[in-house]
């Protein structure tokens, strides 16, 4: 398979894929009603192709992607579970898809009831008292949560400008805190990978607005002292925010609301099976304890008897985060999922996710520690370390730092897994483990898939010792080999330009140093 031409390179002047047909009403030259200077003089250089050209091009491109429908994605903290086809059917129902957000409420009672039910289900699953469904993704949910924290402290007339974040946190956590106007202070994890109560006590001073944690954390470990952690924070009037990215481990197992968590965001495109779509859309609903409910974004759905309505009241609300009501299409899918699962299904998800992770960990740890042992690949004997060998929740971290001696990194291992038809785990994260591989086998994955993954990873460890160059060159079986990312960053080429066929335009490498001075002149 050679490189696929760009759609622009297939363009033939005059071709068109889709048209509205001949005008069916009075024509009106634009010049008659619009001033000349408002009119476009140069058409956009979009491709001119037929419908078949488009179908072929984008079908062929689709075949160059790994996806959940074809591949295991053991990505830690991503929960790449199966995306049920049923949900696509539901989301496409015209009664749910073809609605305008400003239609009168009596036109959308079914949708409002759905949103109300979803909110209630999320409360039930998490033990929180109220939810906003507005945030469009986990990161936006984090931002909302932190703005609620800020609003709360302002109301309490407290000057709190610091957020404590463990060193193992996902990058969005400090980014969201900074965006919300806080200063980030890092919490050093203890040697056991968990929050160190002494460290927390030391850093919890009168400037801390909130502690932002993930439970289970990014090592896949449940914070066994979570209640003490929350009590410590509350004693200093700091709030506890939980990043709900790892909620899959807690379904039916434990409720954050019962741990002392004050607010959290969920990632519907992780825990609640909505499709990743190659980078969204997701949704990041935020759940809060009752005392924080007044700060939630408005409007919210309120039930009055059998009628549902939007309630825009909220003097203390942090305001609006979304153009309308959030990613409705995603919320609908999550609701269908919860309807499918029901109570026993929700419990089954948490249970199976935990068993899958511990099983895979046992296969990898057992074999790598016992060369030639049962289920191990020949001649592996070490190379894959499990820094925290105790029972994990839904994910665990392995380290390949022992391969550094052979000049092989976690990145190389990840690339080689692609040759085995497996997407790589999360690499280089969390930051407090060297050459980390964060592995999460979602509950929808079968035992034989996990066995296959274990076999592949162990074989690669073996290769790393015997022929490390193979890993440096990986992947070699895909249509595209390892890409020159250095060139992509030094000479950013971010769009195609008309000109030489096959050549793309290049943004200036010197761009970006000036800021306002370099702004395009009128």
């Amino acid at each position, binding site marked *: 398979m050679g490189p696929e031409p760009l759609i622009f390179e297939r363009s033939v002047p005059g071709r068109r894929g889709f048209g509205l047909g001949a005008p069916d009403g009075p024509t009106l030259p634009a010049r008659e009603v619009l001033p000349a200077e408002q009119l476009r003089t140069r058409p956009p250089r979009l491709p001119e192709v037929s419908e078949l050209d488009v179908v072929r091009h984008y079908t062929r491109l689709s075949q160059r992607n790994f996806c959940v429908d074809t591949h295991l994605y053991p990505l830690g903290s991503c929960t790449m579970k199966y995306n049920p086809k049923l949900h696509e059917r539901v989301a496409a129902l015209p009664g749910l898809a073809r609605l305008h957000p400003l239609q009168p409420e009596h036109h959308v009672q079914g949708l409002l009831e759905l949103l109300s039910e979803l909110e209630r289900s999320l409360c039930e699953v998490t033990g929180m008292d109220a939810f906003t469904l507005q945030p469009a993704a986990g990161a936006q949910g984090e931002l909302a949560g932190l703005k609620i924290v800020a609003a709360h402290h302002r109301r309490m007339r407290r000057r709190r400008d610091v957020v404590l974040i463990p060193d193992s946190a996902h990058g969005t956590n400090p980014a969201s805190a900074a965006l919300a106007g806080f200063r980030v202070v890092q919490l050093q994890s203890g040697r056991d990978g968990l929050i160190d109560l002494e460290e927390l006590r030391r850093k919890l001073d009168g400037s801390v607005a909130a502690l932002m944690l993930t439970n289970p954390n990014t090592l896949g470990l449940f914070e066994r002292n979570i209640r003490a952690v929350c009590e410590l924070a509350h004693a200093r009037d700091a709030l506890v925010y939980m990043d709900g990215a790892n909620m899959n481990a807690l379904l039916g197992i434990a409720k954050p609301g019962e741990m002392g968590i004050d607010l959290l965001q969920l990632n519907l495109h992780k825990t609640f099976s909505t499709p990743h779509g190659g980078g969204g859309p997701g949704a990041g609903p935020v759940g809060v304890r009752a005392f924080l409910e007044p700060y939630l974004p408005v409007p919210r759905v309120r039930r009055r008897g059998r009628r549902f309505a939007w309630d825009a009241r909220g003097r203390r609300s942090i305001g609006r985060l979304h153009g309308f009501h959030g990613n409705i299409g995603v919320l609908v899918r999550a609701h269908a999922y919860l309807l499918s699962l029901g109570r026993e299904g929700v419990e089954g998800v948490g249970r199976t996710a935990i068993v899958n992770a511990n099983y895979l960990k046992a296969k990898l740890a057992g074999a790598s520690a016992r060369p030639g042992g049962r289920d191990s690949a020949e001649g592996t004997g070490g190379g894959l370390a499990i820094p925290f060998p105790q029972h994990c929740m839904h994910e665990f971290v392995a380290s390949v730092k022992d391969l550094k001696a052979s000049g092989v990194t976690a990145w190389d291992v990840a690339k080689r897994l692609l040759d085995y038809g497996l997407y790589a785990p999360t690499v*280089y994260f969390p930051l407090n483990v060297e050459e980390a591989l964060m592995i999460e086998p979602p509950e929808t994955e079968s035992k034989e898939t996990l066995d296959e993954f274990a076999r592949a990873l162990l074989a690669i460890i073996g290769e790393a010792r015997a022929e490390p160059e193979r890993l440096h060159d990986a992947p070699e079986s895909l249509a595209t080999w390892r890409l020159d*990312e*250095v060139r*992509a*960053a*030094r000479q950013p080429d971010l769009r195609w330009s008309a000109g030489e066929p096959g050549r793309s335009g290049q943004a200036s*490498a*010197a761009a970006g*140093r000036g800021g306002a001075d370099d702004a395009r002149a009128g």
Partner: protein
Amino acid sequence: MKIPADLRYAKTHEWAKREGEEIVVGITAHAQEELRDVVFVELPSPGRAVKAGEPVAVVESVKAAFDIYAPVSGTISRTNDALAKTPALINQDCYGAGWMFALRAARADDYDGLLSSSAYQEQMTASRQ
């Protein structure tokens, strides 16, 4: 690993060289090796007053971004604009063509307070253990 004897160093892996009224600053061979391929450099504006230990520049590789700290207090006098077009100069010649910025020191003696090449070497060996 090259640690030229005629330069001074900061423990955050910057080198400094007195050139007349100015102190020229760049990053050491150790730093550029850790970074791997440099893809972009963000330099401070000339005229900016800086304090010793303050982050004043950023060096980016594909996967990471590192702060570069002013080794002494002073005012930025000029910057190496060649790095805009060829950030790889830092990898190719970190002590020469890969220099990053020059500053006028607030106090002339501060330069002498920086690490000598042997002290920098020692400090690196110690931190590796």
